[in-house]
């Protein structure tokens, strides 16, 4: 949404229409590419940090903001978070071209599992456990 001329991510509860607070995301616009995990615990998005785009994840359960440090030379353009929050896909600009890269978040985030889903083993082949 445009707020004060700045593209800002809002989180709205579908059942009530209520706009939920995002304590870390009042600034650092423009925001883009928001993605939610299964139960809405994690909100991943791109924010502006100085002259660069920065991928971050707000953990709404703990109130913690997790910046995601990319390997050198990768500029994020768009992201997608796996429903359980254990994988991240990034569209990046690197070396003048654009490509998609996948990353493991299992060391950073607890799983946000679908109702009735049990946690099981992962490995690289499982884009999501």
């Amino acid at each position, binding site marked *: 949404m445009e707020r004060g001329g700045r593209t800002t991510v809002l989180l709205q509860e579908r059942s009530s229409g209520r706009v939920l607070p995002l304590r870390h995301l009042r600034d650092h616009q423009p925001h883009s590419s928001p993605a939610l995990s299964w139960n809405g615990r994690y909100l991943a998005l791109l924010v502006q940090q100085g002259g660069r785009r920065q991928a971050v994840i707000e953990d709404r359960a703990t109130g913690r903001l997790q910046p995601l*440090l990319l390997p050198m030379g990768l500029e994020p353009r768009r992201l997608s978070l796996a429903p359980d929050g254990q994988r991240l896909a990034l569209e990046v600009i690197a070396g003048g071209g654009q490509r998609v890269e996948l990353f493991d978040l299992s060391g950073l985030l607890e799983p946000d599992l679908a109702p009735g889903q049990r946690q099981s083993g992962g490995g690289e082949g499982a884009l999501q456990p």
Partner: protein
Amino acid sequence: MRSHRKPLWTGGLLLTLLLQGCQGGLRPLPNLNQQLARLGSGQSPSLGSGWLALIASRDGGRPQVQLIDGQRQLPVPLPGLNRADSLPIQVSVDARGEHLAVVRQRDDRTELVLYRRSLMAVQPLAIEPAGVPRQVSLSADGRVLAVEVSRGGLWQIDLLELP
């Protein structure tokens, strides 16, 4: 009051970045990333549970929607979805890799379609009131679609319940 918030946020972010750097940051998935590199230039990633949808084009060729099976680390066929007369702009996949929502350009107009993989069927989705779709996001359970639509110069978000 407001002038104090931004430096604190920025300081917290920088500190976390430093700590994150010490932890090594994100862990790339090399085998899958090699597979993605073989598909060529990629954009518009969308993750499901064990699935990755994206738009890829090799050697400057026509972009195509691809769906990667995370277990086999290979693209799966999507018969009927990629057409010579259409250009995919954005794709979103549900958790099971059953539904793919695609915004694509065809015959000088932008359309929104839903692909059901088990049926190998493409279903156009009407946008009412009329507008031009840009971005699309399918819920993990595949039941709701959020679409960014341009109407009369305004960008709006439509929610569509899927059958």
